[in-house]
């Protein structure tokens, strides 16, 4: 009977040993790395060459959509915003941003759709549709190399906190929080693939696994499915708050859109 408390004690120690390192230790500023640095040289070569990067095909499509007239008012993005190279430079580096009318943050896809509804009187584009991804990629590509500054707006503070809480929150049948991999184990591998830091510097990005461009929300949803959790719907406030936290966590890192990942 003497051994039972010892076993419990040992079990507690083991549990403590497992749990303790999983307590979120945020990545120091100097140690932050883009997902690019985790990829193979072959994948990096695709991203480095704009004529090899399939994400650029969508950027080209986005450039033509930018000039297409749409909606009841028959206005194109270019009619108001003119040269995207000037008007959209640095925009993606500030998103998700606070929308006064909605009273909550919106991501770049949602901003494009809000602009369509409010200013073009057009129907919003479906999440992950080729058109929405192409326009988003085109707009975000204008900010390539610009340092991320999302979250500078004080109105976003409570939403960043909520996003951070979700990032730290264990969920799904595997009972894992984002932080358990992307803060605590980013220097390790999971089934042969590098665990990255989850720095969203290149979205929308071309994923070789997807064989297409995809948004940060698609990536987040597949991560949630990966821990056997019920993913939030596209455009859900929770997902946008998580995006907001991730972007504010990557503050200072340059935008790479359209990035290429395995």
């Amino acid at each position, binding site marked *: 009977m003497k051994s039972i408390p010892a076993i419990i004690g040992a079990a507690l120690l083991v549990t403590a040993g497992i749990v303790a390192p999983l307590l979120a230790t945020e990545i120091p500023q100097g140690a932050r790395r883009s997902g690019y640095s985790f990829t193979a040289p072959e994948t990096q070569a*695709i991203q480095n*060459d*704009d*004529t*090899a990067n*399939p994400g*650029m*095909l969508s950027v*080209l*499509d986005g450039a*033509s959509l930018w000039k297409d007239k749409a909606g009841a008012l028959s206005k194109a993005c270019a009619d108001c915003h003119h040269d995207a190279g000037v008007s959209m430079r640095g925009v993606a580096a500030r998103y998700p941003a606070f929308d006064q009318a909605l009273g909550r943050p919106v991501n770049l896809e949602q901003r494009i759709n809000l602009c369509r509804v409010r200013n073009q009187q057009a129907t919003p584009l479906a999440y992950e549709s*080729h058109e929405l991804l*192409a326009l988003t990629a085109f707009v975000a590509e204008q900010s390539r190399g610009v340092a991320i500054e999302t979250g500078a707006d004080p109105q976003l503070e409570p939403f960043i906190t909520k996003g951070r809480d979700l990032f730290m929150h264990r969920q799904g049948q595997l009972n894992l929080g984002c932080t358990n991999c992307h803060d605590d184990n980013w220097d390790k591998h999971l089934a042969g693939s590098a665990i990255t830091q989850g720095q969203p510097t290149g979205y929308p990005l071309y994923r*070789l696994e997807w*064989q*297409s461009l995809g948004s940060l929300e698609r990536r987040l949803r597949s991560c949630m499915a990966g821990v056997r959790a019920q993913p939030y719907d596209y455009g859900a406030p929770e997902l946008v708050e998580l995006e907001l936290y991730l972007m504010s966590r990557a503050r200072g890192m340059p935008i790479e859109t359209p990035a290429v990942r395995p």
Partner: protein
Amino acid sequence: MASALINVPAKAKRGEIIEIKTLMSHIMETGYRRTATGELIPRNIITSFSCRYNGAEIFRADLFPAIAANPFITFFTVATESGKFDFDWIGDNGFAESASALITVE
């Protein structure tokens, strides 16, 4: 919204070996996948790619279902004279796209 990205050097020396890179936007649906309700998604791929240098064919490739979306094809040729490269992609459902690029050989 099919579009192509072509990378051909604008200038080359006579006799120089140059690399040509082409990227074509295409879903390359294999014909082996099914929808959530079990229906077969029909095959939709590019079946043929060719390149002509001043009218003479210098490269041709047949493509098959195992090739990934947005096929990226690169090859080398010798820069013999100034002129034009013509690229043609042909595929299922009447898919036909072409692009061209100019080169100056000194």
